[in-house]
């Protein structure tokens, strides 16, 4: 349960951080809140030779309306969710325990991309735009579907950092629902669902069911996989009920 040795850098600016990422390439790994990466490192499932700690990069700490810097913590967003879609505020208390939310960040969660995590599901549901920066190539902005390639696998190149996540303005009159099932409040979800209804258009996402959060028109499309925490049939059954529940929350006929 001890991490392999690594070199540690704590850059003071985004330019310095991008330099370090470019310099170390595949050997380097960005450290955000560490609430997913540190467990992987102590279990030696990840053994990066170089950690680039983003804690002191000022450009990543800001929130400007619906544009959230990658290093903004879940706790900060929980304290002040003003201007964000209300489904985000509903999901935040489910992101780990409060001690985890004090450290965990939006960017870290998305770059880690655990299929059971809430941020990837929210990004897909709300059609968030993710901003990626590197030293040697131009900035690019990807939609959630382009960014999420597979479990724990994103479109981020080795020298790139996710710098910000932008959600669309939440329209007045928009409706939404969010629900998940976990063993303890704050544990990883065994299944989850969220929906929005905007201008009569219904959008439903299930998560913690399979390899990635999944957009579904109908619960029969849910592609569930099983593991030691829950068999596939259980996940599919629970997610199906959660879809009904979130649609009812949103005032829809499921």
């Amino acid at each position, binding site marked *: *349960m001890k991490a392999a040795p690594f070199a540690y850098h*704590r850059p003071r600016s985004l330019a310095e951080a991008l330099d370090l990422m470019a310099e170390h390439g595949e050997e380097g790994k960005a*450290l955000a809140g*560490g*609430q997913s990466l*540190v467990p992987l490192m102590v279990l030696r499932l990840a053994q990066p030779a170089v950690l680039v700690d983003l804690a002191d990069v000022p450009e990543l700490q800001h929130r400007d309306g619906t544009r959230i810097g990658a290093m903004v913590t879940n706790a900060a967003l929980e304290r002040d969710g003003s201007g964000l879609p209300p489904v985000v505020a509903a999901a935040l208390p489910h992101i780990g325990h*409060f*001690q*985890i939310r004090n*450290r965990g960040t939006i960017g870290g969660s998305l770059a880690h991309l655990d299929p059971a995590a809430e941020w990837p599901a929210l990004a897909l549901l709300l059609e968030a735009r993710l901003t990626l920066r590197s030293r040697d190539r131009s900035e690019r902005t990807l939609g959630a579907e382009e960014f999420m390639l597979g479990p724990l696998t994103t479109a981020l190149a080795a020298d790139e950092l996710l710098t910000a996540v932008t959600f669309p303005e939440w329209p007045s009159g928009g409706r939404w629902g969010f629900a998940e099932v976990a063993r303890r409040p704050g544990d990883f979800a065994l299944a989850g669902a969220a929906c929005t209804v905007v201008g009569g258009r219904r959008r439903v996402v299930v998560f913690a069911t399979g390899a990635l959060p999944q957009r579904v028109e109908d619960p029969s499309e849910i592609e569930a996989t099983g593991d030691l925490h829950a068999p596939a049939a259980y996940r599919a059954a629970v997610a199906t009920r959660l879809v009904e529940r979130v649609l009812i929350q949103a005032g829809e006929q499921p």
Partner: protein
Amino acid sequence: MTLADFLRDRLRLTGTHLGCEHGVCGACTVLLDGEAVRSCLIFAVQAAGHQVRTVEGLAKGGEPSPLQRAFLKHRALQCGFCTPGFLTTAQALLDRGLPLDRANLPELLAGNICRCTGYQPIVEAILEVASTR
């Protein structure tokens, strides 16, 4: 080296306990700049320049804090393994000044595991301190 290992093995502050070492059990909770965090999920080097308060820092002048006295009074511990994590977590919740009650406290404590199943006296002890603020 994690902050928890640094506290225990380098500083010999063994009040901070290590259970699961991957963020699930809450035994290693410490206060980092006043906020409750898992010291097993932070490398010691990340805490450079920040204030760390462990369970050893709760007592003042060798006297137990009000929270520690309430834990004694309510017998809010059995084997004592989880106790440092509950004390630091509860201290953070009390310091925040948010209302604490029987409805919200169990959920706020869900990130700390007590395998002696002594949750009820822990809740009673924290509520007593909360009621005297």
